[in-house]
């Protein structure tokens, strides 16, 4: 194919707007459009403007966050590939690698919860298998509006069945996640999905086109008019008229995805692939621009060759379509036949649609004419980069203990264990296949702080978790950012895994508002600090901004997805096997952090007070001790302390193990404070009675605070005058969600 130099604009649409006006409609700012005019030395045509608008959208260019994302530590002894590719890659020994990433599908899920969530799962899986990994685990972090809000139940119903419908069919177990409800998400729910995959460390595939003259192959499902302008939609606020702007909803086909995974991995194994990239947001545009751009080459595509589902599609529509389950690969010379054989076997549409060259331009042909001819470098190099003004976000002041209202400990426990955030999510995760692939060691149902899957055919296992406590981030973005990372690290530690690296999903409101930008900046500062201190680098991530409706932003929600490694999965642990007679130890210090606790929110309706401070030194020291206790087999049960503090963690431990726990308050703190404070860096550890003194000595030596808080006995949870049976506790914890979903709560 040969690039031509004249550019023919597509047939004009009826009431012709000026290009500048169209640019604004497509979400480009006036000064951004001015840069385009300057770089091109002429007006772009419709197609070209479309390409610029998606490449320069917040979603694709990270223009508001890029500057700050640079603060994250992205390297480490186990990092093979950090941010910048489709997903992050870490070394898990023996020539094996783990590839993972988290991504949001917030806006689509609000508009059409089933398809939005389903295609979110599909999209994140493609990011992972595009790099050569077989997906082995899925997670999801969900934030819904308050239960009483008109839309919430339908959204929960749709999102959950969409996640299950897609992941179950593809055959990847969904092993962990988190689910919160808060009025702050009434107008913008969050659906963050994470996928973890396995590959050989020397067989990782990248997207940069390596040389000119290579065939560009499209394979997967056909292109339709799905989700046109999805990427730009994800970069604007919702308003009353969003209904009209709404793009055609993308529909997911998990069956096609399953075929795509098998075909892609087979194609890679055949040795035919030179570079490969999934078609995600902004589909054909971003995939072709990135592959050619990263390789420092040029690319020409003949759009007539693109497999099309609908008739009379324009070049603009094809380039911006977000039809799902599609891939773009650059094959090694003369390997087209390998490709066609594999695509035919798996029943996928496929076509050579173009070629790489040395022009440094992207040229698109349609019906024999050039419909787009752009230099590639401005698309990425000149993408806007904003140092948006920001102000130090408002912070909740420290709440003196004397100002903390007092509640009866038993009543408070019941209230908290039954509240939407703490209530069992069984209704939801029983809809997820958690066991397919026959390597699941722990999942949402088993009583572990992280999901665990075996590295197939080895003694190794991966531990995975997703964490964020938005109420902390809201009260203090910096501490809250730190906390999200620390909790993920702690959850991996609590199952006996070595924490290795994280991915993140930064969900915030409109970055053009200095207060919101302040949340973003400070949360990133806190996360980066925790990642540095805990040697927990960020290897991939995603940013979702403009989560606002009618000017009201979501609570800042920087979700952390983390991966750890167990070298011997027989050394894993949970809080589900505590036995009668064992002693319960509390590792870590309890100063009585009551600000922004569930206790205040659920019992008194108060969302006030500074969140718990995260001391990274103790976090590290305490975690190292706990891991040692697990490794040496002394620990018989471990649970980290988070939402609801010590008493809720104990309740969860008792329920998962099916044994009673008798606890005491060995501190000077009042019982309600000791029970529900959310001090960080703490764990409950069950040990055999005979081993207790030894463990206490070890802790003393490591200068880690430790205390005996109870013993496993009977079938009640006992603490400071409170005695509640496990049966009651279970009923309390299990009944809310099913009752709510059936309309009874």
């Amino acid at each position, binding site marked *: 194919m040969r690039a031509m130099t004249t550019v023919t604009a597509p047939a004009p649409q009826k009431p012709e707007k000026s290009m500048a006006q169209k640019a604004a409609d497509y979400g480009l700012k006036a000064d951004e459009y001015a840069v385009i005019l300057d770089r091109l030395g002429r007006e772009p045509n419709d197609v070209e403007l479309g390409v610029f608008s998606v490449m320069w959208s917040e979603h694709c260019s990270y223009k508001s966050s890029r500057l700050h994302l640079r603060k994250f530590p992205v390297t480490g002894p186990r990092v093979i590939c950090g941010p910048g590719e489709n997903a992050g890659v870490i070394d898990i020994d023996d020539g094996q690698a783990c590839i993972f990433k988290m991504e949001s599908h917030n806006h689509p899920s609000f508009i059409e919860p089933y398809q939005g969530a389903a295609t979110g799962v599909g999209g994140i899986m493609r990011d992972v298998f595009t790099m050569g990994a077989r997906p082995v685990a899925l997670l999801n972090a969900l934030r819904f509006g308050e239960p009483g809000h008109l839309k919430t139940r339908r959204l929960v119903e749709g999102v959950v*069945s969409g996640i*299950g*419908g897609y992941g*179950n*069919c*593809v*055959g990847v177990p969904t092993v962990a996640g988190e689910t919160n409800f808060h009025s702050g998400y009434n107008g913008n729910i969050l659906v963050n999905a994470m996928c973890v995959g396995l590959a050989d460390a020397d067989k990782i595939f990248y997207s940069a086109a390596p040389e000119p003259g290579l065939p560009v192959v499209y394979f997967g499902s056909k292109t339709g008019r799905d989700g046109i302008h999805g990427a730009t939609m994800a970069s604007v606020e919702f308003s009353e008229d969003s209904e009209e702007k709404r793009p055609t909803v993308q529909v997911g*086909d*998990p*069956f*096609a995805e*399953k*075929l795509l995974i098998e075909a892609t991995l087979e194609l890679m194994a055949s040795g035919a692939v030179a570079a490969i990239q999934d078609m995600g947001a902004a589909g054909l545009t971003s995939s072709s621009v990135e592959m050619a751009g990263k390789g420092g080459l040029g690319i020409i595509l003949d759009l007539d060759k693109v497999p099309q589902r609908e008739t009379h599609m324009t070049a603009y529509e094809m380039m911006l379509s977000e039809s799902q389950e599609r891939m773009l690969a650059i094959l090694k010379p003369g390997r087209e036949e390998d490709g066609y054989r594999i695509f035919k076997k*798996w*029943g996928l549409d496929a076509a050579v649609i173009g070629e790489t060259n040395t022009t440094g331009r992207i040229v698109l042909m349609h019906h024999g004419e050039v419909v787009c001819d752009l230099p590639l470098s401005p698309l990425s190099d000149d993408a806007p980069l904003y140092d948006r003004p920001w102000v130090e976000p408002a912070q909740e002041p420290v709440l003196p203990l004397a100002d903390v209202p007092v509640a009866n400990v038993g009543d408070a426990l019941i209230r908290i264990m039954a509240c939407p955030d703490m209530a069992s999510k069984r209704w939801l*995760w*029983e*809809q*997820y*296949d*958690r*066991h*397919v*692939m*026959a*390597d*699941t*060691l722990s999942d949402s*149902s*088993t009583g572990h702080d992280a999901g665990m899957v*075996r590295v*197939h055919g080895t003694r190794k296992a991966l531990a995975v978790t997703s964490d964020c406590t938005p109420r902390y981030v809201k009260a203090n973005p910096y501490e809250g950012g730190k906390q999200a990372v620390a909790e993920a690290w702690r959850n991996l530690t609590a199952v006996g895994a070595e924490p290795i690296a994280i991915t993140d999903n930064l969900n915030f409101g409109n970055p053009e508002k200095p207060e919101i930008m302040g949340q973003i900046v400070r949360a990133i500062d806190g996360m980066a600090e925790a990642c540095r201190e805990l040697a927990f680098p960020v290897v991939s991530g995603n940013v979702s901004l403009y989560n606002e409706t009618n000017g009201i932003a979501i609570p800042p929600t920087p979700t952390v997805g983390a991966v750890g490694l167990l070298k011997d*999965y*027989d050394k894993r642990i949970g809080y589900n096997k505590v036995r009668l007679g064992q002693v319960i130890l509390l590792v870590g210090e309890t100063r009585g952090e009551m600000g922004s606790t569930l206790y205040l929110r659920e019992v008194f309706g108060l969302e006030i007070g500074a969140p718990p401070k995260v001391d990274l030194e103790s976090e590290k020291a305490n975690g190292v001790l706990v891991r040692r206790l697990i490794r040496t087999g002394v620990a018989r049960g471990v649970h980290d302390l988070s939402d609801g503090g010590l008493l809720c963690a104990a309740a969860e431990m008792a329920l998962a193990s099916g044994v009673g726990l008798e606890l005491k308050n060995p501190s000077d703190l009042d019982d309600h404070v000791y029970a529900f404070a959310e001090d960080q860096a703490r764990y409950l550890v069950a040990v055999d009675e005979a081993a207790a003194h030894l463990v206490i000595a070890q802790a003393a030596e490591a200068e880690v605070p430790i205390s005996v808080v109870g013993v496993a006995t009977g079938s009640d949870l006992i603490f400071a005058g409170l005695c509640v049976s496990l049966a009651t506790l279970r009923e309390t914890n299990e009944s809310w969600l099913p009752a709510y979903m059936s309309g009874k709560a």
Partner: protein
Amino acid sequence: MKAAVLVFPGSNCDRDCKTAIETSVKGKVEMVWHQETELPSGLDLIVIPGGFSYGDYLRCGAMAAQSPVMAAVRREAERGVSVLGICNGFQILCESGLLPGALLRNSGLKYVCKPIELTIENRATRFTNAYGDKQTVWMTQGNGDGNFFADAESLKAIEDNEQVVFRYVENPNGSMNNIAGIINRAGNVLGMMPHPDRAFEAALGSADGAPMFKSLVDAVVA
């Protein structure tokens, strides 16, 4: 033991079945693509794995039942070779008429994934010999259409001929007579919704599926 595991577009427990057989009885397993018209010779067992063949669009198992390989399975089944259909495999066996009845949407209309307790109703089959005196076993299950249905006459025949091999202790999906798995009259074709292929070693939460593969090995030797 020499086994074949069928692979349809959308099968997703094919590897699990292979691993389960290799791990629990060191069997030799060949994967067989749905387009094949012949099965390898000398098979002791044909496994139709779980998953979502053809996306389970239209009806679970309907399109897979029409695959070329299923004609070969029918021939082998008639010759007495053991055939085990798990989950989607059970649905495929019903759709192809190798087993009676059909699997309807779960009564709760949702996909249900959970560990489940089963009573072994018939220990005198080549699939269940090795369970000894074990009354109940645990396996996990995961499906959206596991609700066994047969018309009154067929159901009576199934019961009268002791074709029910597994029953749920607690019915998760509305299955008639708590049926979790049935066998054909000849005793060589078994279909079940729960997954022995996800319960073959303790690390997975249960090893109660392993005796099924041991039974089949014993049957080969006998």
